[in-house]
Structure formats: structure tokens, C-alpha cells
């Protein structure tokens, strides 16, 4: 067995990499959030003024709360649609199951920007949805109602993040041994009973993981709101991004990002607790 000192030396050598690349940058931006930028000149006196500004100004804090609400909506919509899909794919057999899963997962690899672009063109003024509704006679002329509002952001996010929900739920379902379902059936349970009492509780960890993914992705996304939300689709991600661009107030942006970081961390911890409470 290696000695104490050499173990610590190896630890220092190996751990230095992720510490340097991940922990140090996060620490730096958290530190920056405690300073002030005054007319583009940094004032290195520690202060909580950035946080005070964020929580005190409804423009920012309201946007933050609105974003949280949007995240929960995206999460709920994704689970509501993704769970039945994962369940359906899981119920299929053999190669059909594999190909359906592939269809569900391949979008995960497709460029985010490309998906956004094509979805936007579908929702847009001369997009597929408008054209179709005109075709059936519901709409008279091309409409903009599907684009540049919060609803568009919600739908687009739910669609884009769908594979992140389907995959973990499917994997959780697949881990349920067949014999458990047979045992439930054998003991006289109906299909609904088996689903409610066996399948659903056992697939909960995967569902929580999927929910967490969508929540965190929606929380920090600043491109989707801009592309399909227009001027009304303001999220905290967009506000932060603007502080590093046009507004050019890094410390304030960093403070808001710190709140975002803690929110995401809280989500991860909560999901972790919820998953470990499952007795599996």
C-alpha cells in the first residue's frame, strides 16, 4: 500500500486538473460577483451591492421568478409528454423498440442551433403550422401567434429537451426486471395496478433525472428565448448574457449567474435527495 504522503501527492497531481478547470473558474466568477464595475472600471472592494441590486429591482428579480416558473412549466410539459413516449417505446419488442429509441435519442446529437432554427421556421409567419391551419380553414391568413411569445419559448424548449426526458425514463423502465411485472400480474393486479404500484414508483428515479435535466437546461438557456421569444421572451439567462455583452457589467452578471448557479445546485441536490429516498 502506498504511504500517506505519496497518496496525497498523487491526489494533488490528479485532482489539480478538474480543480483548475472547473472549481477555480467557478470560484473566480463567484468572487467577481462581490465586486463592482463602476463605469467599466473594476472596484475590488468586497460588497453585496450587486446582489442587493438584483433582489431589489423587480425588473431583474421578476425576470428570475418568471424564468423559474417557465422552467417548471417546461419540466411539467416535458414529463407529461416524455413519460408516455418512453413508456410506449419500452412496451415495444425487439428491433422496433431499438429503432424507436434511436428516433427519440438521435435529436440529442443534433445541433441545438439547427433545431431552434427549423422549429422557428415551422412556428413562424409562413411556417408549417400556419400553412396547415390555413389549409384546414382555421386561420385566414398567416399568423404570428406561434412565435415571439412565452408560449413559443415553452413549446420550443419542451420539444428540444424532450430526448433528455425520454432517455433516462426509458433506461429506468428498462431496469425493471420482467419478473416483477409478472409477479404483480400473477398476484391478481390489473394492468393499471401494476403500472401505478410497480412501474411508476420504480421509474421515478429516471423521471426525476429527466425533470432535473430539463429544469437546468431551461434555467440557463439564453438562445432559445432570444430566437423564438422575441422581445417578450425575457429570461434570466438572456439578462446575464447581456451583462457580458452590450451592458458590459461583469460583476452584476456574475452575481445573477451566482444566483442561477445556486438555483441549479439546489435543483441537483433536491433531485439527489428525492432519488436516494427511493428504496431501491
Amino acid at each position, binding site marked *: 500500500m502506498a504511504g500517506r504522503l505519496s497518496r496525497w501527492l498523487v491526489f494533488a497531481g490528479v485532482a489539480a486538473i478538474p480543480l483548475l478547470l472547473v472549481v477555480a473558474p467557478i470560484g473566480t466568477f463567484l468572487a467577481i460577483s462581490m465586486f463592482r464595475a463602476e463605469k467599466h472600471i473594476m472596484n475590488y472592494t468586497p460588497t453585496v451591492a450587486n446582489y442587493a441590486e438584483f433582489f431589489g429591482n423587480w425588473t431583474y428579480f421578476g425576470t428570475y421568478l418568471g424564468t423559474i416558473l417557465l422552467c417548471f412549466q417546461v419540466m411539467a410539459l416535458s414529463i407529461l409528454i416524455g413519460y408516455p413516449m418512453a413508456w410506449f417505446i419500452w412496451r415495444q419488442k425487439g428491433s422496433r423498440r431499438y429503432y424507436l429509441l434511436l428516433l427519440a435519442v438521435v435529436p440529442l446529437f443534433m445541433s441545438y442551433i439547427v433545431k431552434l432554427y427549423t422549429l422557428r421556421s415551422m412556428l413562424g409567419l409562413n411556417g408549417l403550422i400556419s400553412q396547415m391551419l390555413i389549409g384546414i380553414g382555421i386561420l385566414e391568413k398567416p399568423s404570428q401567434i406561434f412565435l415571439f411569445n412565452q408560449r413559443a419559448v415553452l413549446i420550443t424548449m419542451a420539444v428540444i429537451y424532450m430526448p433528455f426526458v425520454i432517455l433516462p425514463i426509458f433506461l429506468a423502465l428498462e431496469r425493471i*426486471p420482467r*419478473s*416483477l411485472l*409478472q*409477479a*404483480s*400480474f*400473477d*398476484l*391478481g*393486479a*390489473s394492468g393499471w*395496478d401494476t403500472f401505478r*404500484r*410497480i412501474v411508476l*414508483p*420504480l421509474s421515478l428515479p429516471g423521471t426525476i433525472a429527466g425533470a432535473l435535466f430539463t429544469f437546468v437546461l431551461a434555467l440557463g438557456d439564453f438562445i432559445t428565448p432570444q430566437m423564438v421569444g422575441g422581445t417578450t421572451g425575457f429570461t434570466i439567462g438572456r439578462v446575464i448574457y447581456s451583462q457580458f455583452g452590450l451592458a458590459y457589467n461583469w460583476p452584476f452578471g456574475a452575481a445573477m449567474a451566482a444566483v442561477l448557479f445556486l438555483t441549479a445546485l439546489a435543483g441537483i441536490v433536491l433531485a439527489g435527495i428525492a432519488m436516494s429516498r*427511493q*428504496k*431501491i
Partner: protein
Amino acid sequence: MALELNEVSKRYGATTVLQPLSLEVANGEFLTLLGPSGSGKTTVLRLIGGFTAPSGGRIIFDGDDITAMPANRRPFNTVFQDYALFPHMTVAQNAGYGPLVQRRNGPEARKLVDETLEIVGLSALRDRYPSQLSGGQKQRVALARAIVCEPKLILLDEPLAALDASLRRQMQVFLKQIQRRIETTFVFVTHDQDEAITMSDRIVVMSQGRIEQVGTPKDLYYRPQTRFVAGFFGDNNLIEGVVAASGDRVETRLGNFPLAAPAAGGCKVLMGVRPEAMRIGEGAIAIPADVEEVMFGGAMTRVLLHAVAAPATKFDVRLAGDGRGQALAAGDRVCVSFDPADAVIVAD
């Protein structure tokens, strides 16, 4: 007859896993389906349980045709090979699952669960989760869950396969005791002939999707009817031969041996002699043989030999204790002998 399989068969596409077979199971009996893997024994169990639909034939229970009845309606419960305990439920919740989904709530259902846990000796562990139990305890939970609804038939799919040898022997006794106590029919699947012999009222020996022989453990042990059964039980020494025209002798490459009971002349037969019925030394029938291996096994000593006249014919002889002072060693030339009355004759 409680349960009757009538010309039941099973095919998957072009492969037949079960030839049409008929079988009757009496009320309250402990019936074992015994065979090597791929013999179709588990398929029979799944057909009875309702997890698979037969390709042909009918399944009748108490006079009713239940062939098309789904598993959740059949009054049978199964103990699965991997126990199939619900990991997110406690022992008591697992045991109470049947009454729960059958909407039998209330105090009497709770009492039933308590009683059942008492029977299997798990009352103290009722609030544990399956992950906190040992293999034997999991086995008991699976059994409790299956018997709590008082099914007419309990199906057990190799339930002891995952346990170690000493625990397996304990559980064999335990299962037998439970069966006597609740007076329910058990249909038990195993590939272990010792387990089958010690536990069963009747054994169905299966091979390659067919029934080889049905009978009591003693029937199968002392009167096997096929080469497969003779070879499957207890390391029989088999000698190939033909019944002489006179019908009172078997002619083999090792010599002519008298028959205890007359048989039809000209039949190809196998003469089977149990290892414990063979001796080393002169006797009524004596065959010269060379010792290959002597293995001391505690209560008995196992001697492996081959016939001098036909080295491909092997003998397995068990001598009590350390061999009663017979100092044998590999390479010794001796005689193996047996009493014709101890030999079974199986049509080949």
C-alpha cells in the same frame, strides 16, 4: 383431478419447445417437474401460471377450461426463480400486495398478512426492504407473498437455485413443512434430482420438450423406464446388451448375465446397476475391471473403474466408509460384481 393438461404444446415460430403432453395434478400433492435446461419444464410452469399461451391443447382446472384465462385471474400464485420481490416495498407490503390489488383491504386482510408472515417466520423483519434481506429470507418473502391469497396451486420456478448447499437443504425441509401445513398443491420446477427425490410426492421427468416418465421418487429410482431416466438418477452404471432368445439372459460384450425377471427375446436393453449395489470382489456376476481412481468421500469411498474387456464401459462403485480395508489403488485389476436382482432392465 384438480389440474389437467390436455395435449398441451408450445411452439415459438418454427421451434417446438413442448411436444403435446398430458398431465394430471392431484389436489394437495407436491409435484416436481424435473429435467435439464431446455427440457421444457419451465414452459410447462409458465403455461399453468398463464404467462404464456399454449400453441395447442387445453388446460382444465376443477372442470373449467382455463386455457384463455389471464394470469391475474387464475387462482394460482408463483414463486419466481429470482424471487421478483418489489424492491420499493417492505416485507409486509410485499406480502400484502396480493390482497391489496385484489381489493381485499381491511382488518382481515391485515390479519392474513400477519399470519402468513408468522408461518414463514418473518414477523420480526416485516418492515425491512428486500435489499436488507439474505437470500433465504428473500425466499421466505416470495413464498409468503405467493401463499397469502390462499391460492389453489403454488408454482415454484427453481426457487432454491440461488441458495448455497446447506441453506438449500434447510429450505427443502421448510418448503415441505409449509406445504403440509397449508395443504395446497405445489408444482415445483428443478433440475436437481436429489431435490426432486427428497421433496416430491410425484416427479415428472422431462427431456427435450417431452415427458420421459411420471412416477413416485421410488418408482423413478428403482424402476426407470427409459435410458434418460436411468442415466439421470443417481449415476447408474449402464451396460448395453440384447436379451437372449430364451428370455432369461442378457448378452453383453462383458459376458452373459442372468435376468431376475424374464423379458422378450431379441430386445436391445440397458442393464442398470446403482453404484451402491455394486461391490468389488467375486460374486454371482463378476466383471474384470481396472481401477482408474479411488476417491475418499467421508461416509463412503468412490471407486471409478473400466471393464477390461471394453475400456469404454465405466463403472462407478460406492464402498461404505473408507472401503472396508480394501486397499485399492489406481491400476489395480479387480472384479466388480452385483446381484442380478439389483439390476434394472431398460428398453434401449
